């Protein structure tokens, strides 16, 4: 995997996304910043509703406005702010240099068009001069690449003739059709069963080898993160709570929420009687708790006042800013082992 030290290809700065609903304003994403470096796999983890998908969808202009709103933020891709681009320019970039893989391959393919039609369409939209034959040849090549057997036959089949795993391969083929430099995979394996998940991970690796794209891997599956990601962004209640490379995040997390995530993970290499869930419920995004949004569930806070009053600053723990966390008492987590910490009731 390439080093993540070059100029970022996508810089998300201070992104805030809100939705107006009947119950009030939902603060889906609040002051989120992170960088994506060329060729890396950036895992974005968090539970449902933590804003991990919304942050990427809003960057691509895919959230409906209204009710959605983006009061602050920029997303610099190759010197252009995606949030300020005119619609036509954004259409060129979507599916071209920035492509997306969706969660549910069962519903993300149009039932009335053949798989081949849909992939060729992605090619032709971005390369208007392409002949039908050339697009078809490229489509078959892509299907072959993502491991769809008998690509020449299956290219003419409809989505309902594909299994879930095959459809997801088709979606990946469509996403990499135009050699994107950024590939957003929004929970690419969530809708699939476990054996198929493993295959799709392989396909994603192949896709990255082939296109050298930087991948934003949005998931709540820490196993998938461990398998694929170079760096990890942990999100909670619409904010980034921790950011670091994958080894650091897994070995010495500096945010109690990350610790909680690790402890709630079933592991084969540890003798676990039961899993340690994070107590409580995710907060309401309409009226998030004051201070640190995690404090009602936090075992580290232990009722300290600052957690309830001040939003913790996002601080870095080393010179290169490679590992940062938003916790007032991150130092207390130190380099303690996650398991040990759990045993002590953190």
């Amino acid at each position, binding site marked *: 995997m390439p080093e993540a030290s070059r100029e970022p290809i996508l810089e998300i700065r201070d992104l805030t996304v809100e939705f107006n609903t009947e119950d009030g304003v939902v603060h889906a994403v609040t002051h989120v910043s992170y960088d994506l470096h060329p060729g890396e796999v950036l895992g974005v983890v968090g539970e449902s509703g933590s804003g991990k998908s919304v942050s990427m969808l809003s960057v*691509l202009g*895919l959230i409906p406005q209204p009710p959605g709103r983006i009061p602050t933020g920029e997303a610099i891709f190759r010197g252009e702010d995606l949030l300020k681009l005119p619609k*036509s320019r954004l*259409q*060129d*970039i*979507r*599916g*071209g240099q920035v*492509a*997306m893989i*969706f969660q*549910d391959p069962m*519903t*993300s*393919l*149009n*039932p*009335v*068009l053949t798989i081949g039609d849909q992939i060729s*369409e*992605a090619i032709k*939209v*971005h390369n208007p001069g392409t002949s039908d034959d050339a697009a078809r040849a490229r489509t078959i090549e892509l299907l072959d690449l993502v*491991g769809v*057997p*008998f690509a020449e*036959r299956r290219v*003419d*089949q*409809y989505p309902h*003739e594909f299994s879930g795993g095959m459809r997801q391969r088709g*979606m990946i083929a*469509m*996403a990499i059709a135009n050699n994107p430099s950024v590939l957003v995979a929004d929970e690419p394996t969530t809708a699939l069963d476990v054996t198929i998940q493993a*295959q799709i991970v*392989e396909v994603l690796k192949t896709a990255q080898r082939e296109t050298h794209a930087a991948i934003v891997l949005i998931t709540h599956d820490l196993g998938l993160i461990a398998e694929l990601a170079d760096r990890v962004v942990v999100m909670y209640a619409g904010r980034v709570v921790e950011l670091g490379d994958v080894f650091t995040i897994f070995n010495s997390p500096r945010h109690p929420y990350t610790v909680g995530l690790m402890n709630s993970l079933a592991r084969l290499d540890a003798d676990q009687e039961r899993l340690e869930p994070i107590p409580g419920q995710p907060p309401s995004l309409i009226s998030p708790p004051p201070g640190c949004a995690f404090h009602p569930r936090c075992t580290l806070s232990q009722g300290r006042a600052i957690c309830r009053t001040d939003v913790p600053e996002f601080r870095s723990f080393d010179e290169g800013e490679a590992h940062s966390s938003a916790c007032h008492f991150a130092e207390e987590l130190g380099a303690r082992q996650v398991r040990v910490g759990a045993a002590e009731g953190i």
Partner: protein
Amino acid sequence: MGSPDLTLAYEAGVELKARSQWAYVRMRFFRHRLAVASLIVLLLIALVAVFAPQVAPYGFDELDLDNTTQSPTLEGGHIFGTDQLGRDYLSRVIFGIRTSLWVAVFVALLATAVGTAIGAIAGYFGGQTDNLLMRFTDLILTLPGLAVLLTAAVYFGSDDSAVLGVRIPQPMKIGLILAFLFWTAVARIVRGLFLSLREKEFVEAAKAAGASDLRIIMRHMLPNCMGPIIVSTTLITATAILVEAALSFLGFGIQPPNAALGKLIADGQGEGFNLWWLVTFPGLVIVIVALAINFVGDGLRDALDPTQRRVRA
């Protein structure tokens, strides 16, 4: 990563027959016997209408003053009899079908095209666009149909005269007036379908792939609405035939010398039961055509509904 089982299956020559959506639609439609029979009847009638000049034994205004008011007979030339001027009634009915069907198909196609366009735009863009277009649709719907039809037919549809400098044949004018009232149903159906399709993930996926609004509407959403659109088009055709007949019967529809089915009934009704064939034959044709179209529409609705797994007897 080809799975060995599938490879074996292919090598053993086991052909997994791929059926497209349309193959399933055809299959389901052909199981609906009444619809198939109706389709055959309709096709025959349509063929007769298209080739009226070749099929009809006489011209529609050819007089035979020696044989006026002849009752239907298999002997001699006048199977449907003749009218008061000795015109062969079979020929008049055939030309009547030609005019009436032509108007009905014109109305159905135009109403579908306009309704689909308006419904699609309203449903896709939503918000103010939707509001504006749908309130306009509501406005048309609140018009008292018959009154508008009669008024428009009198002031604008009674002859071949030019409208805004364009010369429009009189039957087409009647078609335009009918289409003006009929597109609203299609618009509402298509808007409703678009509202639900708009939220589908494959539409979002198409957006994420860089497809433009027009492309998403034309290529991803409209094909998913074809079933209900086709069905409503067929049903509009049937309604158009009936309304056009009613209009012509009242004397406001198709004007002579064009023969239309409703007009034939109107001309024959004064004679009451003495010349029964003047009313019966065109009336029968109207009933058969309208019924057949409705059956075909019924069959199409069942065939195009993928959730309909029931096999028709």
